[in-house]
């Protein structure tokens, strides 16, 4: 994130993810009951919500998705987390925008990273440094 223009664009994109009820919401002092219930609604409970028709696609799993699946399963077999923490609560805890905005296995891998940090298996600084190191390695190729 070096160029200021790039930073500005990124900030605009982030602002566009703000929950909006036709007007942007930011630090409300009064939240009525229906809105409160809507905010507290767990993102995975989508049954009965209206949606536009979407194209049905038969998508094959990609390697990173399979790797993610196996990683999360192995963490379960080692007793690091259980299925309810893993697939359900941790995914929900990513928040509404992230839950809906990234691919299915993207939720899983972010939730796994978060859990490993939360439970003190790795440190956040350690993880960020490792990701930066790997990114730099790929950039050289």
């Amino acid at each position, binding site marked *: 994130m070096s160029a200021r223009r790039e930073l500005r664009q990124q900030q605009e994109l982030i602002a566009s993810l703000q929950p909006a009820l036709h007007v942007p919401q930011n630090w409300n002092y009064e939240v009525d009951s229906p809105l409160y219930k809507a905010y507290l609604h767990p993102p995975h*409970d989508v*049954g009965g919500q209206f949606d536009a028709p979407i194209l049905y696609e038969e998508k094959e799993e990609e390697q990173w998705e399979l790797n993610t699946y196996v990683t999360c399963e192995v963490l379960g077999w080692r007793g690091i987390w259980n*299925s309810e923490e893993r697939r359900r609560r941790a995914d929900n805890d990513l928040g509404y925008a992230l839950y809906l905005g990234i691919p299915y296995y993207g939720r899983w891998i972010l939730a796994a990273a978060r859990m490993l940090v939360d439970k003190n298996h790795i440190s956040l600084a350690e993880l960020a440094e490792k990701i930066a190191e790997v990114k730099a390695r790929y950039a050289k190729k």
Partner: protein
Amino acid sequence: MPKSKPLKKSQNTAGKARFKVGDRVRVKDMPNLFYSRTQMYVRGVVGTVAACTYKDLIPEDEAFNRDGRLEQYYIVRFRQKDLWPEYPFDNDTLQTESPERWLEPVES
């Protein structure tokens, strides 16, 4: 899907099942706080117990890795028309699963 921790018999604290197959039950509408697996569209709706399945941890505990509180689960059958008033077919039903604490008895 293997569970991370097998359930021990000594953890079974649920006692006798409160409902039996055929009982009319209403799904409670308890507040959502951080996590729930009880769908919004069944809350407050009356259905029929279709099966007593097993005893297991309740989602609110398992989601935070708390052990020890096993509870009876039920498969509850709803009329689609009770869930979605505009639904066109009278005989169609929908089944979903719920632990005991989310159900209350309905006098028939």
